[in-house]
């Protein structure tokens, strides 16, 4: 019962203030470690995203990003190591190739380009990770809910 209740109340609040739902793919070695580093340095940043850890940013397929958008995500951030830092050498270069294909599709679908971003965060850049999240959440909030947001979301 409790989940029903809270999801209804959540519905009400979401009417007033739009809180975006954002999926962040973080690579285990750099971005995920950067997020941990932000934690260790107690950097406070917006909670409006959920992290999925993959071993490398190259692991994120266009299918995964498109699935997130199809299910109503308002924004998707793929983050990996700075070029040259990748634990698997060129994983992040592959991420760029995948990103370009996905971005073209997103544009053709009519979704605003700002909803999908690819960023590099190193294991030592806790503060930068926090900033990046706040900036991205702010941007997506400005863009408002994704057109796929309510029609596809199964209750």
């Amino acid at each position: 019962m409790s989940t029903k209740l809270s999801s209804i109340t959540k519905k009400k609040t979401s009417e007033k203030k739009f809180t975006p739902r954002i999926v962040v793919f973080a690579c285990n070695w750099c971005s995920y470690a950067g997020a941990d580093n932000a934690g260790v340095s107690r950097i406070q940043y917006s909670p409006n995203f959920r992290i999925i850890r993959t071993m490398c940013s190259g692991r994120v397929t266009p299918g995964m990003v498109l699935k997130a958008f199809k299910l109503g995500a308002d924004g998707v951030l793929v983050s990996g190591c700075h070029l040259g830092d990748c634990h698997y050498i060129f994983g992040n270069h592959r991420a760029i190739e995948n990103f370009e294909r996905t971005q073209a599709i997103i544009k053709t679908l009519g979704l605003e380009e700002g909803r999908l971003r690819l960023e590099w965060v190193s294991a030592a850049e806790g503060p930068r990770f926090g900033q990046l999240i706040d900036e991205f959440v702010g941007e997506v909030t400005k863009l408002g809910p994704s057109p796929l947001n309510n029609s596809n979301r199964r209750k």
Partner: protein
Amino acid sequence: MDTTTAYLKKNRVFNCLECGKCTAVCPISRFNGTYSPRRFASRGIFYGSGDIGKDNLLWSCLTCKQCSLVCPANVNYSEFMRDARVEARAMGFSGNPSHSGALHYIMEMTASPDLKQQRTGWITEDLKTCKEGEILFFVGCLPYYQDFFSKDLDFSPIDIAKDSIKILNHLGIVPVVLEDERCCGHDFYWSGDLENFMKLAELNLKEFEKAGVKTIVTACPEGALTLKKLYPEQFGAVSYSVLHLSELIAENLDKFKLNEIKSRITFQDPCRLGRYLDIYEAPRKVMSAIPGAQFREMQRSGKKAVCCGTSAWTNCDSYSKQIQSWRLKEAKGVGADILVTACPKCQIHFRCANKNEENGKNIDIEIQDLVSLFASALA
């Protein structure tokens, strides 16, 4: 009578004599011994859709209709497969999506009513199109294929659309190109996902009505089949007629002045154009009209043409590759320089099968769409 018996009856599966002719012609069974249409039919009869539903091979059937055409008991096998898939999907099963489902998710996103696509960026000044009118050029998924495959298979799927418009303009037609055309839903229909198929159909029909469309021309046989046959089946009579571009060209060959293309070509009959829409002659007429092009017919062509090996972006595997390689070798075998296809998907699948990361090509043959070939011959 439960639903399984209903669709077994509808598709005349009970009439099956287990003679095995279907398995003999099935391209999948040829390479993947574990798949046999005959055995699927008898399992359907004895064990019902529960048994075949959970078998992943259910999604390997190409629905290419070769088996249905040769079946002495007139079993509509492809439709039987489709109905079984509807039930399997209800039980939570689905095939292995290729490209980790990217294409499926694109198609499903276009089913969202609030989506405002930007899919006409490819129309350049020299191509005349309009927003409303009687003749619509149905682009299909080409813009998305352009985004997804152009770099990977180093060819430009959107050129098929550009060449089509060039040909239509040449015939004095300024076709409507819809800003918000949706995926036709063919793959959902054949994968048993009727819910998304209906959503897409409704959106498209509304767009056609708004634009006042009377005739729809398309370069994609799957689109043609869906608009011409599948929509009416679901929504009753439709207010438009459908032509595959090859038909239109064939009727107006006299209006074209063509340059010479000195090359030996052969034709891959798309299953949907041939066995589903019975359009065999038009493409051949078009090709023979191109001066200098020596047309060579493959042994397995027309009704007996071999499918291009992958359908609805599902269960693509080593056996699909073997079908595609086998077909490419057959095309090379008849001495063709160019394998002409009339369906964007056939071209994509053949190019993928022929791509060799090291030295470019496995089999030394060009692959080109009929429309682009014809457009390149325009004087």
